[in-house]
């Protein structure tokens, strides 16, 4: 991966804000002032001085998020022409456009932390940076599109809502806008699923099969349990919740909504434990998660190759944008 520390920030810190840690102090003193500000719930803006550890951590986090938005549209894109009605085609197209828009906004946040967009694309396409596990899988039927828009987006939004309070100001503000747009995606997906569930037996079976396919990846999506005290992103308040907190929150909201449709969740151990106040579930396949996010998933290479071809095919647009203007007519 391009070393983010070796890059000049796009927004040169020429005009640092009047914050105590922006003063020319010994590093340790600065670090302490910065940290106490962040730990007290303060926000960091791009022009502020920040420790390299913080800048790198935010950049990694946001870049992975941006990559996921960009790669995440590919499974859905495959269904635009196959969506059953014009309205569904329009809705799916709008969702795809939204997700690419999210990628654009997030790449902007990352660029201001010092890594140019082209370098981020280079690293993504070379497999040096990652994108979320759920976007490495194939889509088999229209029901997969319903399950993705409903449950994958729901699992994502649980995480994204917690990020609206990130210590990095531009990320927090971007997440407010993104969450506002995401709520429509979930409604669109749930509507697709509910519609199918009021249809024929074949349609209902189609949804059940899609849920069976996606449940494993959904449970893996937030990652293994981690130690709160050792999580740097939590310490810096870049994110607010652990992977397990996010998964529990997802289960609490969505298990009842899945069950009320007559669907069966493919996990016999899934149950709410009144004693602990937590959901118990079969241990997700963490080996599968590792395999998939390192680009060894069933569709990893194909989706990356699509992006490579797409990047080459659209190079002329970027060239045109950056070329000298023709004299005005």
């Amino acid at each position, binding site marked *: 991966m391009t070393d983010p520390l070796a890059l000049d920030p*796009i*927004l040169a810190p020429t*005009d640092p*804000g*009047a914050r105590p840690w922006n003063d020319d102090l010994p590093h340790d003193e600065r670090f302490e002032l910065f940290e106490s500000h962040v730990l007290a719930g303060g926000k960091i803006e791009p*022009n502020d001085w920040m420790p390299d550890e913080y800048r790198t951590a935010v950049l990694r986090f946001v870049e992975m998020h941006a990559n996921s938005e960009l790669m995440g549209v590919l499974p859905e894109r495959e269904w635009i022409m196959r969506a059953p009605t014009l309205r569904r085609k329009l809705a799916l197209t709008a969702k795809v*456009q*939204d997700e690419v*828009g999210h990628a*654009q*906004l997030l790449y*902007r946040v990352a*660029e*201001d932390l010092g890594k140019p*967009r082209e370098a981020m694309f280079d690293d993504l396409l070379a497999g040096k940076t990652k994108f979320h596990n759920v976007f490495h899988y194939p889509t088999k039927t229209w029901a997969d599109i319903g399950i993705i828009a409903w449950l994958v987006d729901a699992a994502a939004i649980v995480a994204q809502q917690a990020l609206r309070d990130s210590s990095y100001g531009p990320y927090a*503000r*971007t997440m407010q*806008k993104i969450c506002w*747009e995401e709520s429509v995606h979930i409604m669109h997906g749930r509507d697709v699923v509910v519609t199918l569930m009021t249809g024929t037996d074949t349609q209902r079976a189609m949804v059940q099969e899609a849920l069976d396919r996606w449940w494993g990846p959904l449970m893996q999506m937030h990652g293994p349990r981690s130690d709160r005290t050792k999580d740097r992103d939590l310490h810096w308040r870049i994110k607010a919740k652990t992977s397990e907190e996010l998964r529990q929150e997802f289960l609490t909201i969505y298990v009842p909504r899945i069950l009320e449709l007559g669907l069966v969740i493919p996990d016999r151990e899934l149950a709410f434990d009144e004693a602990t106040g937590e959901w118990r579930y079969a241990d997700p396949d963490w080996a599968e998660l590792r395999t998939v996010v390192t680009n060894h998933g069933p569709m990893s290479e194909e989706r990356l190759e699509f992006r490579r071809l797409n990047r080459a095919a659209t190079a002329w647009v970027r060239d045109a*944008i*950056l*070329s*000298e*203007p023709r004299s*005005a007519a």
Partner: protein
Amino acid sequence: MTENGDRMIDEGDPNVGAPEPEGGSSGDAPGAARSGTLEAWEVFRQEKDGDPMRHGGNVMAPDRELALHYAREMFSRRGESVRLWVVRRADIGVLDDLDLLQPPLDRSFKKPGGYVMRDKLAAARDRAGTSKPRARE
């Protein structure tokens, strides 16, 4: 963007009134010539007529025209804005020195709450003999 787009911007554009290049009919305002490099443009959006312009985010663009196109894609895809401004980030001046903005001095004389005159007013009325009669014991 179209003339329409530039007019929209010119309402708040400090460049308005600056000498136009010869002809003056080019869509690009002075200083907006394509530089061949991308730079950050801050986007401000107005949600409905009469609302203040609020910061929405930013876009990378080589010039104002494309910055507006991108801003429209990013900040009014759902029709959530009635007006957008784009401002080259480098053109923004910043003051955030709290010693200047919120000096630690008593500024109560600048606020209505800084004037507490209940007792004085009562005294003045007493002297003028215009006090309202108090409830009798």
